[in-house]
């Protein structure tokens, strides 16, 4: 698995192919189809952003909802209270998320395994409580409805295609960043840290600083995609924004798809996001919660049988084949 | 008593032992020497059943125990006193000793064994309510040996019992080992203290790179010019 470091052209090729395929959705004008696609791409993007930090360094964050929510509130408040265009708000949101990441990183990155996960969950919950408490600024638990004034400057559109297009651009950006990182020193350092932080440090890799960079990049993209989603749904509230569930989903999608691979989160998102929607539509109105049982069982099954995720397992298989052919032809 | 035939094992894809065969007779002290990473501890772990056997056979008292779980082996009196003591630091001395007699084999004799251990190591009685982690190295080693004795061993495997101890304590440890042996317990002793180990061993093996390179009586090995070379690598 994780041979991504040595593949370059094929990564760009796959990336382009996937984007091309996904952009076929732009031909549709059916808002439901587009909504499914948007939701899918949204989760792909969040999961990919999550993957930059957690997939590559092996730290399990269940608190990306904190970055998401903070960015959503930043951009929405800038837009609704100060009339600053979401285009700027998006950037501001990403940056505030990054600042939060800096704080979280300094405090919590020395924690490992379940404790990092728990600390991030606690952080998300604390932010949710504060968002509810300080209702003078945040509107409290009622949330904020973003007025529907479609225009390019407001990043609100009558049809869903432009929004979808923006989501696609963002996904492409995150994927390209991931490919770039995976080939860069940062990426190499991160996987080294994931495999063994002590050894990594002995090679001269500053464990803390590299993880912090990754967390900041990851949170930036999480924030940006969060603000875009807020402009799409036109509504934010503490429970929805600072949601541990969203963080959990990002993690599960990445891991099922294959954490620490460029395309794992993409595969996970494309498989799981629509599945969830269809299961909910299919079972949700007849048996309460049944779709989540199915979802949960699938998760357990995948994690127990293919812990490296789909992409990991597939590329391990490919590697095996390659090795065989190499041996057969006896090259090197 | 213990017969290991052509044993191979390893970790992951790395083979560590390559067809090791040893044999220990009833009531004797068998010594095993070899440099670091020669595979001694791996062999002992495999005999105790913690490592899976890749190939070969382990027999104990004429019974094939190759695939038995560690606890089944303890039930048969195959007890290990591990390298580095490995006491349970948050348990007190008494509790550590009692853990030694967890097996069905040892439980009925618990009180007798405990008395015996206290007699052998009066210091343990004095410190019986002290957390084991807070004792000195020598005391810890006594406790570890005591714990092993609580299991009513037929064969006691001792992995580096003198490791990291002051010379005077080392002397004492070897006296104890001989004493235990006199009481009828067969002993497999792995030691870095070659001279001592070989001088009390009836039978001895030297191991290198996962293979047995020499065997004979303790005296023979001790006088063998090759041992010094092998062991010191000169």
């Amino acid at each position, binding site marked *: 698995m994780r041979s991504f470091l040595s593949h370059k052209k094929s990564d760009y090729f796959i990336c382009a192919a996937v984007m091309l395929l996904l952009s076929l959705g732009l031909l549709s004008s059916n808002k439901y189809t587009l909504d499914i696609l948007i939701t899918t791409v949204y989760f792909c993007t969040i999961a990919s952003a999550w993957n930059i930090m957690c997939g590559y360094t092996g730290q399990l964050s269940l608190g990306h909802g904190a970055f998401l929510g903070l960015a959503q509130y930043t951009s929405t408040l800038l837009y609704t209270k100060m009339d600053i265009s979401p285009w700027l708000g998006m950037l501001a949101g990403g940056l505030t998320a990054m600042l939060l990441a800096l704080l979280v990183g300094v405090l919590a990155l020395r924690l490992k395994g379940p404790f990092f996960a728990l600390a991030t969950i606690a952080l998300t919950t604390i932010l949710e409580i504060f968002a509810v408490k300080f209702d003078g600024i945040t509107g409290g638990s009622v949330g904020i409805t973003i007025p529907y004034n479609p225009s390019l400057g407001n990043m609100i559109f009558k049809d869903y295609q432009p929004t979808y297009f923006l989501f696609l651009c963002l996904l492409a950006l995150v994927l390209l960043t991931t490919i770039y990182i995976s080939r860069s020193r940062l990426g190499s350092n991160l996987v080294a840290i994931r495999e063994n932080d002590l050894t990594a440090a002995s090679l001269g890799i500053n464990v803390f600083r590299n993880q912090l960079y990754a967390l900041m990049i990851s949170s930036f993209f999480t924030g940006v995609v969060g603000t875009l989603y807020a402009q799409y749904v036109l509504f934010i509230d503490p429970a*929805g924004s600072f949601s541990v569930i969203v963080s959990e989903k990002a993690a599960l999608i990445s891991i099922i798809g294959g954490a620490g691979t460029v395309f794992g989160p993409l*595969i996970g998102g*494309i*498989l799981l996001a629509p599945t969830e929607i269809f299961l*909910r*539509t299919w079972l949700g*109105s007849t048996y309460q919660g049944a779709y989540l049982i199915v979802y949960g069982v699938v998760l357990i099954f995948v994690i127990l049988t293919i812990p490296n995720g789909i992409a990991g397992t597939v590329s391990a298989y490919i590697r095996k084949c390659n090795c065989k052919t190499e041996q057969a032809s006896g090259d090197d | 008593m213990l017969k290991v035939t052509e044993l191979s094992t390893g970790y992951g894809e790395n083979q560590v032992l390559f067809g090791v065969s040893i044999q220990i007779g009833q009531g004797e002290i068998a010594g095993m020497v070899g440099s670091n990473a020669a595979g001694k501890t791996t062999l002992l772990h495999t005999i105790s059943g913690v490592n899976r056997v890749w190939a070969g056979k382990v027999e104990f008292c004429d019974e094939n125990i190759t695939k038995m779980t560690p606890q089944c082996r303890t039930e048969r009196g195959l007890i290990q006193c591990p390298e580095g003591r490995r006491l349970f630091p948050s348990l007190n001395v008494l509790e550590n000793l009692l853990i030694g007699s967890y097996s069905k084999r040892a439980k009925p004799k618990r009180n007798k064994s405990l008395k015996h251990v206290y007699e052998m190591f009066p210091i343990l009685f004095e410190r019986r309510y002290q957390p084991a982690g807070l004792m000195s190295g020598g005391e810890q080693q006594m406790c570890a040996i005591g714990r092993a004795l609580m299991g009513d061993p037929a064969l006691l495997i001792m992995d580096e019992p003198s490791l990291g101890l002051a010379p005077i304590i080392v002397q004492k440890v070897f006296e104890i080992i001989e004493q235990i042996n006199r009481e009828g317990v067969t002993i497999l002793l792995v030691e870095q203290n070659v001279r001592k180990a070989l001088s009390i061993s009836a039978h001895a093996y030297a191991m290198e790179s996962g293979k047995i390179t020499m065997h004979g009586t303790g005296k023979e090995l001790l006088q063998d010019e090759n041992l010094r070379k092998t062991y010191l690598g000169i």
Partner: protein
Amino acid sequence: MKKLSWFLILMLASVTVLSGCSSSTPANTAKPAEVIKIGVIQPRSGPLAVSGEDSYWGTKIAIDMVNEAGGIKGKKIEAVVADVPNAGAAQNEVNRLIQNEKVKVITGIYGSAMAEVAAGICNRNEVLYWEHISVTDRLTKQGYKSVFRMHINGSLFGEQAAQIAESYAKKIGLDPTKATVAVVSENGDFGKSIAAGVDAYTKKAGTKIVLNELYDSKTTDTSPIVLKLKASNADIVIATSYINDGIDITKKSKVLDYSPKIFLGIGSGYGLAAYGKSLEKDAEGMIDLDPTSTPVLKNLDPNMAKAVEEFQKRFKAARGYDSPTVGYLAWQATWVLLNNVIATAGGTDNLAAMIKAAKELDIKVGSLPTGAGVKFDESGQNTRAVISAMQWQKGKLVTIYPDYLANAQGIMIPLPAWNKR
């Protein structure tokens, strides 16, 4: 790597086909509308599922009853049902209903976050959105043309609650300007908007609020809240709670021997069957402010009375207990929607006609089982929605206020100490 890309492409293709399928199958039903399709959305999984499910059954029974009576102008009503546990799902499902199921009317939804999203999309797509429960003021304050709310909004709710408190205060000889009020509310939108309404009204009336405390409804132990109430020593307590915390506040009041002169509970916290069931004798005398769930059938129009009776029967059969307030609210909202709006507009094809029909509705207060009437203001808010005071008497919830809805006399006002109850 090539294989990986093939795998990806294959997957994408299958997903596209899947989504294509789901969007194309319902499109086949483009045959002449023999049925009238209505979107019914409720949170039926997730944390709001309790009341979501109750309100679903309210809506479903109303639709069934209309269908059994021959439908509207001979056409049967078809409910297209969706589970909407959160705002994201609302976005998705409402779009599905509008785009693929081609519904022109959507009714729901109970939860306010989902209502916000659903109402926005419906308005943009020129679909009638008929809210039956969510109380957040803002829903009807955004200039939406096709959004109507049958239920009372939060600030009106709070105002009426404060009014009721005032009248009871007068009854026991308290001077409203000298009485002290303590307000505790769960910190969700429900509690907050009601607290704001109470606040506004008491300011007008000159009553002093000595404690205005918010708390998290997920809280497990409410004794600090009760202790705060006790410390505030207020004459009147207005508490907005969900069921879990509502039960616990009452339990803790008893444990800590706290009884204010008047205790008014608001919302599902004090009115659900579970409240009476788990508190048994201790529920006696507790007052719940909400639209009534014990309609006085004899006060209603005979036809309506018959329908309500039928509803009560069916609800009990379906859910195993008497309908709580949300059931009635959902049922009556759907009932009005079908019989008074869609029937008048002659179907759902013409939005303008439906809006006109809704705006022209003029049903006097007391005509619907919860005592409400219907008259929408410009924003689409029903101005004739009312709340009433219900009281637990002998294990049952009876309505004691206002008089035209009352089926019993209020007891234990002011509340006696716990050991004298």
